[in-house]
C-alpha cells in the first residue's frame, strides 16, 4: 500500500509553494483582475525556466521527466495561488500529445510548449471534423483568448487546430472568473489534425483530475485564509474562531478537502496506471473537488463578514474561480451521472 506522496513529491510541493509565494503575489493576480494585463506572462516564463512546462514529459521528448502526479502537484500549487496562467489546458494538451500523438505531432508541438512559446486550450466543440478541417463553435475555451493551439473535441474526434489562421475567429467572453482569459472559438473549415480515438476517451478524465488538483489547491488556500481570519477577528470579546458554529463550519470545509484530496490522488493514480476504474475515479475527483472548492469558497466568504463581499478582498476571486472550474468541464450533475453509470456497471 502506497497512497501518499513520495518524499520527492513532498519536496516538489514545498518548492512549488515557495515559488508561488515569490512569483504569484497579490499584485500579479490583481493586475489581471483589474484588467491591466491579460494574463501573468512573467509567472509563465518563470515556470518555464524551472522546467515546470515540461514536467511529466519524458526527457527523450524534451521534457523534464517525472510522472502525471507531478503535473497534478503543479496544478495544485497554481490553484492555491489563483495563478492567471493557462497551465492546466497546456499540460493536458502536452500530456495527450506525448501519450497519443504520432511522431510528427509530438515533434511539431511538444518543443514549443515546453519552451513556453506555445500556449494551448482544450475544449468541447459543437461541430464537425471532416477531410482534415473542422467547422463549428467552442463556446467556452479555457485560456482560449491567449492560446496558440487548441485541442477540440467533437463527438467523434479530438483534433489539433492552430489558432492563428484566417479560419478561426476568437471572441473573449466576460468570464465569471476574471483571472483567466476565456474565449469563444468559431471555426470555418480550419485545418485540423486528428488524434487517435483513445485520446477522445481520455481527455475528459484527465481534465477532471488535473482541474481537481487546481480546485484542491484553491480549497486549501481558502481554508488557510479563513482560519487566519477567524483567529484574528474578534466579536463579543473573543476570537470568532472560538465560536463553535464557526469551528464546525471550518471542520466541514476541512473534511470536504480531505475527501477531495483522496479522490484526486485516486484519479491521478487511475490515469497513470490506466486502471479499469479510471472513469469512475476521475468522475469522483471531479465531483469531490468541485464540491470542496465551491463549498469552501462560499462558506469561507461568509466567515469573512462584509469584508468578504468587497471587490478588494480575495474571497470573491475564489468564489468565482471555484464556479468557473466547477462548470468548465460540465457541471456536477453531469459528472454525478457518470459516477452512477459506472457504479451501475460495477454492481450488475
Amino acid at each position, binding site marked *: *500500500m*502506497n*497512497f*501518499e506522496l*513520495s*518524499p*520527492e*513529491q513532498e519536496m516538489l510541493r514545498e518548492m512549488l509553494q515557495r515559488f508561488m509565494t515569490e512569483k504569484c503575489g497579490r499584485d500579479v493576480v490583481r493586475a489581471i483582475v483589474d484588467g491591466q494585463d491579460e494574463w501573468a506572462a512573467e509567472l509563465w516564463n518563470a515556470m518555464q525556466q524551472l522546467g515546470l512546462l515540461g514536467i511529466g514529459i519524458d526527457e527523450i521528448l524534451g521534457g523534464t521527466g*517525472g*510522472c502525471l*502526479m*507531478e503535473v497534478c502537484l503543479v496544478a495544485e500549487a497554481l490553484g492555491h495561488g489563483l495563478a492567471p496562467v493557462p497551465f492546466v489546458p497546456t499540460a493536458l494538451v502536452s500530456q495527450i500529445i506525448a501519450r497519443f500523438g504520432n511522431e510528427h505531432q509530438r515533434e511539431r508541438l511538444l518543443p514549443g510548449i515546453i519552451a513556453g512559446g506555445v500556449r494551448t486550450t482544450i475544449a468541447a466543440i459543437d461541430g464537425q471534423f471532416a477531410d482534415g478541417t473542422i467547422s463549428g463553435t467552442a463556446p467556452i475555451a479555457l485560456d482560449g483568448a491567449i492560446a496558440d493551439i487548441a485541442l477540440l473535441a467533437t463527438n467523434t474526434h479530438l483534433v489539433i487546430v492552430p489558432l492563428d489562421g484566417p479560419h478561426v475567429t476568437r471572441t473573449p467572453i466576460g468570464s465569471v472568473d476574471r483571472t483567466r482569459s476565456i474565449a469563444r472559438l468559431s471555426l470555418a473549415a480550419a485545418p485540423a489534425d486528428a488524434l487517435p480515438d483513445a485520446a477522445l476517451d481520455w481527455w475528459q478524465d484527465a481534465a477532471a483530475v488535473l482541474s481537481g488538483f487546481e480546485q484542491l489547491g484553491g480549497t486549501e488556500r481558502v*481554508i488557510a485564509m479563513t*482560519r487566519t481570519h*477567524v*483567529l484574528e477577528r474578534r466579536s463579543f470579546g*473573543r*476570537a470568532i*474562531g*472560538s465560536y*463553535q458554529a*464557526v*469551528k*464546525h463550519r*471550518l*471542520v466541514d470545509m*476541512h*473534511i470536504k478537502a*480531505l*475527501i*477531495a484530496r*483522496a*479522490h484526486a*490522488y*485516486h484519479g*491521478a*493514480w487511475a490515469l*497513470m*496506471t490506466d486502471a479499469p476504474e479510471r472513469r469512475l475515479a476521475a468522475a*469522483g475527483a471531479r*465531483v*469531490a473537488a468541485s*464540491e470542496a472548492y465551491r463549498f469552501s469558497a462560499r462558506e469561507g466568504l461568509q466567515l469573512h463578514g462584509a469584508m468578504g463581499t468587497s471587490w478588494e478582498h480575495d474571497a470573491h476571486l475564489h468564489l468565482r474561480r471555484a464556479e468557473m472550474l466547477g462548470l468548465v468541464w460540465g457541471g456536477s*450533475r453531469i459528472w*454525478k*451521472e457518470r*459516477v*452512477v453509470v459506472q*457504479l*451501475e456497471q460495477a*454492481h450488475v
Partner: protein
Amino acid sequence: MSEAMMDFNDSPEQANYRMQCRSWLAEALTDFDGRRPHFPDFDVPEVMAAARAWQSRKAAAGYAAISSPRGYGGGGGSRIEQEIFDQEERASPAPFTDVFDIGLGMALPTMAAFATPEQKSALLPPLIAGRDIWCQLFSEPSCGSDLAAVRTRAIRDGTDWILDGQKIWTSYAQHADYGLILTRSNPDVPKHKGLTCFFIDMRAPGVEVRPIVQMAGIAEYNEVFFTGVRVPDAQRLGEVDGGWSVALSTLMHERTLGGAGKVRGLTIADIIEGARKLQIGDVPALADGAVRERIADWWIDMEGIRLNYYRALTLLTRGETPGPEFSAGKLMSGRQVQEMAAFMLDLSGPSAIDIGDDSDSAGLAMEWLMAARRRLAGGADEIMKNILAERVLGLPVEPRLDKDIPFRDLF
C-alpha cells in the same frame, strides 16, 4: 514514472502475509457453519460461544492482537499486518467478535502502558485468547462528553480504595470479567486534576450490572452500580489523581482509524440493488434523477473515507502514526449510514412500516435503528468536530468555565 509511485498493492512481504492470512482463515473457518446474524447479540449463547471459540482459535495461531508483544500472547507483528488480517477477516464469514473489541482495542493498550509487568502477564493473555471480556466504565448518568466530570467516588482506605457511584452505557458489562474505570479521587481540585483510573474485577462484591435494552431491542449496554466496592491500590493505573491522562490515552486508541473502512452496514451496492427493485410510479427508482444524485453523493463520501483509510495505512506501512484527522471517518460514516437507511425506507413507501421479522424491511429497519448509536458511541459527532477543529485546525478550545474551580463547588 518515478519508482515511489502510488499503488494500492501490497509489498511482496505484505502480499505474502495476506496469502498466509487468507489460507489460514479458509482452513480455520471450515469448522464454522458461516451462518451469522445481521447484528451480533451476545446475549444469545450460541453467538457468544462462537465468538469465544473463534477468538481463542485466532490467539492460538498468533492472529489475535497481532501487533501486541508476544510476551502477553500477542502476535509480535506490525500494525499494517494487523490491518491486513482484519481486512481478510472482514471479508470472510468469521463469527463476530465485537464483544472483545473494547478489551483488545482499549483495555489492552492502556494496560500495556500503565499496568505492572506481573499484571500484564496475568491479565493480557486471557484477554487476547478470548477467555476474559473487558468493558470501559467511563460514561455516567450526569456526563458523557464531559468525561472529566465523573462523580463515581474512590476513597482511599489503607492499601485499598472504596468505590461508590454509577456508570452507564457500558457496552458488554453484562459479560465482562474486568473493567477500566475512571473515578473521582479528589473533589477538592478542578475536575481534570482529581481523577484516578483503575482496572477492576467485575465480579467483586458491590458491583451490580443491569442491562439496558437499546432502541433496536438488543441489550448491548448496561448500567453498573458500585456500592462500597473494594479495589486494591495495586489495580490503580497511572498516578493518584493522574487518571485523566490514562483516560485520554484510552480514548485515543478508541478513535484512531475509527470508522475508516471498519464499519459494517449498508453499502452503495445495497442501495443500488434496492433502487433497482423499488419503483417510483412506473419506473425503477434507480432511473430517478434525484435518487441517482443521492447515490453519487454517498459514494463520493464513502469512497473518500475508504481512500483516506488507505492514506492512513500508508503511514502505518512507513512506521508513522496516523493523526487525529483520520477520525473524520468515524464522524462521517455514522450520519451517512443513518441517512442511507432512512432514504431507503422512504423509497420503500408505506410497506416499510412493516418491519416484522419476515418483512422485506426488517434488515433495513435494523440498520436504521442501530445507526443512531454510531453517532454517539466513542464520542458524539459534535465532540468529534470540536476535536478536529482544535487539534487539526488549531482553532481555540471551547470555553471551559469550570476549569479552575474545585470539582465540589461546581454543583
